[in-house]
């Protein structure tokens, strides 16, 4: 070889190192020498021809060129073992796996039990999450459906608000002005207007029905519903038509085919006749819009109001949906929408001193972003919550996998001989790995096989925990099976791979020489300890979490809300609102001895407060106005709910007797502060609001009340006031009750009710329950965390128990000798338990800051929240240690009590 003249002979150019390694890795050993030799020789020639850089590139290309079967295929030898995946070998693996499982029944059952529980958990969560994410995916134009959401500035306690709805005229204007909008439709939820239920009359039977929406006639052209009767395209064209759910049809008419039947409905208006023009069911898939009935926007009352409304700034009550043309640019359309809003409603907005931004939200994302905005149509969930569930489920399964790892490696000494013999007779490492992996796969498949029927059986109970309501549709849903298969594979591989690699690494020589595993035995013990620690870290975080969530929930429920929610009954007179019968009913009920006080309201605390108005004090103008939310109430309101009055007076009967031009209001502290009025000067002061038509509304402050939490306590108190209203117009009657026998009281009220309103079913509510319902999400969360905590502890303890059994077995002789030398049962128990309890303690130390961080993340969403006190960590730690100690003790006591003769005599 001749070198280039400028190259010193010492520095022979080298081909790229990693290309070399790659070649050495894949090339068959019997070909490597000649191929590498030829390559090197040719490389030097290329260096002379092309220079080092390009020669290296050439080399790399050549090496890649050798990556072909002829160079990779290993030379067959007469002694080669069959492939690790040969069918015979696989049959052998399964055989050995089953033999091993049946030989070690205790360990097998501990593992299978743990894995089954973990899999039930995981499987349920996976299916649940998949179900939650399937909402609104079935519409033909699912990816082109958008909802307008509204962002308001300068409002409320935080200064901004996100609403899932917008002002009514936007839909029609957008449809005419923007070519992107193929279809626009609106939905109005009468519940927002205090119409919480409808009275349905069919012949002489009456029913309360709760959820019904008013929708534009384009609704069923935008969304796809499965109609079992009627024509979706025309169902809502005529006024006084109604489309009902299959369940409602069966309830009302005993048949789903209820087309053209009539219903008398009392809701917004009394006794209107509606004709059924369609019956739908949810067979197409989940959707966030699944009421019991749809009524056309083209109807009287709320429909008229919505259609004629020309407010662009306020009245953000219409849920507006677009079906866009394919390829529409969302950003551009959003900008155009806001331009349209400025053009048509800019003056109104400036007058009301509001900033308003419209956004487009994909309909498929609505169900899983429920907490993002106010005024939700239906109970949804949040991606964050779903991800957290997935995370916890993953951790639970991991805890179960760790059990398998620990129990397998702990027992490795027992199987070392087996590994040695197998290797001596020619088992390759891959064969052994396949062998051990198949054991974990068999275990996992057993667990999954047990878990599937259990999930189906336990489904109602699990649904109760998560507050969900989904059915398993295994046959139809191919996804479910994919999930199950994926879960089984993943679990098997995670739990089996470490033991497989560890056990197959034993050196047969050292196994037979000293019957001792090699030095990595201590490494495995170390890893085992770390795994136990991580199990208990997960369990401890969950314990702390369960404690904190429970305490926060109790705090929310027991916190002084500024009003007394105990022993309050609520009767809704919405069906007869405005009639003198309201007064008669109230008088007759308050005459009962058990009733201490009785008040009427338009919305009781805890119920959604739909009304708000921008108000400014004397000397101000609309630019300094504050948006204040209000409810109507009578003069008994303060007394009945035991709300403190800070200044001024209560309403007087003459305030509420008739409608007066100048409204009398009692405002809360927050409103007072926001308006900048001093407490002493407040009573008698007039606050005003300018209307778009040039008129002014005047309200006289007669009193100032303490702040009450009329909403969830995750919100800070908004400016709020009560407006003196006529008794007959206050549908929610709240009674302060002093009774021992509620059943008797309810009977008495029912008698009065049935006498007065024979055609309306009697119903009642308790205020404390209504308030508790505000925290349903938190209650669900608390239940889930509790359940997960139990499961994590249970599985961790199964593993700990297995390890304790193993440790006890190994130390039988030691214990025997100690006992002979005079150790007490207590001494020995402590000796055995010590190792494990230390691990749990370490786990708690690691878990505490993690729990602190995660829980503060959760707590920061609440305006009123608890502090996580130090003793909570101690309590959680105490629980974990106690449980672990008891688990280990069952073994150690048995061992410590055993007769030392037996352990010492053998061998």
């Amino acid at each position, binding site marked *: 070889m001749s070198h280039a003249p400028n190259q010193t002979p010492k520095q022979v150019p080298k081909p790229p190192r990693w290309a070399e390694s790659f070649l050495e890795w894949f090339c068959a050993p019997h070909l490597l020498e000649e191929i590498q030799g*030829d390559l090197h020789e*040719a490389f030097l020639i290329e260096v002379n021809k092309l220079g080092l850089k390009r020669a290296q590139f050439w080399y790399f*290309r050549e090496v890649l060129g050798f990556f072909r079967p002829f160079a990779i295929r290993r030379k067959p030898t007469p002694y080669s073992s069959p492939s690790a995946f040969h069918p015979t070998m696989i049959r052998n693996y399964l055989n050995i796996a089953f033999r091993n499982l049946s030989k070690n029944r205790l360990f097998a059952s501990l593992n299978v039990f743990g894995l089954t529980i973990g899999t039930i958990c995981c499987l349920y969560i996976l299916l649940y999450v998949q179900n939650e994410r399937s909402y609104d995916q079935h519409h033909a134009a699912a990816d082109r459906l958008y909802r307008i959401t509204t962002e308001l500035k300068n409002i409320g306690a935080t200064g901004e608000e996100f609403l899932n709805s917008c002002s009514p005229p936007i839909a029609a204007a957008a449809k005419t002005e923007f070519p992107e909008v193929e279809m626009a439709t609106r939905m109005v939820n009468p519940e927002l207007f205090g119409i919480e239920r409808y009275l349905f009359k069919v012949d002489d039977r009456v029913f309360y029905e709760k959820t019904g929406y008013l929708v534009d006639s384009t609704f069923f052209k935008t969304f796809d519903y499965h109609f079992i009767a009627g024509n979706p395209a025309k169902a809502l064209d005529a006024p006084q038509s109604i489309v009902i759910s299959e369940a409602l049809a069966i309830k009302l008419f005993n048949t789903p085919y209820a087309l053209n039947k009539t219903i008398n409905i009392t809701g917004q208006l009394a006794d209107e006749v509606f004709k059924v023009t369609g019956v739908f069911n949810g067979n197409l898939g989940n959707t966030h819009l699944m009421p019991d009935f749809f009524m056309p926007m083209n109807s009287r009352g709320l429909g008229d109001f919505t259609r004629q409304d020309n407010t662009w700034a306020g009245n953000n009550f219409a849920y507006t949906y677009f079906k866009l043309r394919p390829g529409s640019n969302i950003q551009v359309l959003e900008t155009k929408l806001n331009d349209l809003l400025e053009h048509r409603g800019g003056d109104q907005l400036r007058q009301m001193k509001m900033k308003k931004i419209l956004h487009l939200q994909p309909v498929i994302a609505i169900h899983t972003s429920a907490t993002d905005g106010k005024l939700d149509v239906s109970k949804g969930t949040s991606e964050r919550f779903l991800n957290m569930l997935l995370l916890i489920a993953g951790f639970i399964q991991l805890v179960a996998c760790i059990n398998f790892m620990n129990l397998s490696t702990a027992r490795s000494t027992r199987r070392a001989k087996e590994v040695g013999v197998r290797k001596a007779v020619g088992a390759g490492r891959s064969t052994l790995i396949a062998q051990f992996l198949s054991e974990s796969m068999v275990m996992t498949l057993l667990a999954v096989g047990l878990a599937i029927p259990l999930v189906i059986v336990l489904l109602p109970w699990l649904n109760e925990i998560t507050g969900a309501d989904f059915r398993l549709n295994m046959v139809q849903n191919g996804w479910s099976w994919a999930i199950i298969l994926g879960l089984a594979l993943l679990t098997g591989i995670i739990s089996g791979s470490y033991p497989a690699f560890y056990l197959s690494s034993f050196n047969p020589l050292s196994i037979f020489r000293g019957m001792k595993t090699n030095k990595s035995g201590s490494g495995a013990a170390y890893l085992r300890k770390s795994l136990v620690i991580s199990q208990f870290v997960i369990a401890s975080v969950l314990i702390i979490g369960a404690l904190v969530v429970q305490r926060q929930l109790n705090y929310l429920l027991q916190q002084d809300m500024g009003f007394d929610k105990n022993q309050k009954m609520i009767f809704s007179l919405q069906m007869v609102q405005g009639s003198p019968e309201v007064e008669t009913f109230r008088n007759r009920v308050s005459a009962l001895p058990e009733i201490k006080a009785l008040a009427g309201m338009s919305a009781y605390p805890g119920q959604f407060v739909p009304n708000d108005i921008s108000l400014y004090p004397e000397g101000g103008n609309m630019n300094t106005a504050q948006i204040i939310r209000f409810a109507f109430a009578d003069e008994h309101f303060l007394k009945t709910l035991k709300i403190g009055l800070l200044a001024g007076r209560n309403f007087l009967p003459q305030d509420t007797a008739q409608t007066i031009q100048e409204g009398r209001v009692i405002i809360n502290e927050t409103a007072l502060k926001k308006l900048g009025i001093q407490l002493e000067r407040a009573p008698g002061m007039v606050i005003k609001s300018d209307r778009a038509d040039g008129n002014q509304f005047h309200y006289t402050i007669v009193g100032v009340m303490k702040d009450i939490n009329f909403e969830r306590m995750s919100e800070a108190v908004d400016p709020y006031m009560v407006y003196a209203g006529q008794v007959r117009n206050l549908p929610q009657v709240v009674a302060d009750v002093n009774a021992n026998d509620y059943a008797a009281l309810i009977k008495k009220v029912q008698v009065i009710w049935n006498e007065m309103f024979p055609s309306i079913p009697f119903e009642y509510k308790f205020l404390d329950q209504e308030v508790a319902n505000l925290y349903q999400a938190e209650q669900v969360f608390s239940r889930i965390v509790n359940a997960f905590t139990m499961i994590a502890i249970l599985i961790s303890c199964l593993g700990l128990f297995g390890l304790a059994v193993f440790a006890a077995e190994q130390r039988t002789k030691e214990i025997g000798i100690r006992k002979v030398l005079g150790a007490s049962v207590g001494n020995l128990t402590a000796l055995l338990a010590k190792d494990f309890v230390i691990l749990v303690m370490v786990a708690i130390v690691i878990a505490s800051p993690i729990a602190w961080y995660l829980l503060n993340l959760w707590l920061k969403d609440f305006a009123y929240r608890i502090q996580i006190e130090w003793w909570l960590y101690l309590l959680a730690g105490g629980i974990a240690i106690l449980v672990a100690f008891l688990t280990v003790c069952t073994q150690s006591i048995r061992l410590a009590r055993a007769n030392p003769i037996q352990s010492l005599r053998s061998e």
Partner: protein
Amino acid sequence: MKRNYLGEFEELVLLSVAVLDGKAYGVALLQEINAQTDRNIQLNQVHAALQRLEDKGMVASAMGEPTAERGGRRKRFFQITPYGLRTLEDIQNIRNSFWSRLDYPKIDPSL
């Protein structure tokens, strides 16, 4: 006539092995073929072809002695077998018989 099928490239490699007569190994063959045909073939193609030829029994190989120039790695030398040589001759005979019958056709100038 029944014989093993020989691809054009294999034939080239086999010819080169025959020509180099005992001194044929990967790099030598690569250079020989590149020089004679003015192509730019790759070493791995040569190796792949050699292995196929050896499987067909047209070449035989043996490892040489270690030399300093390639880091002490030995070369594998290839020698054509009688069967290989006969195959080459067969191919040549067939071609010759065709060529001998070729009566340079008039090429239509319009084509």
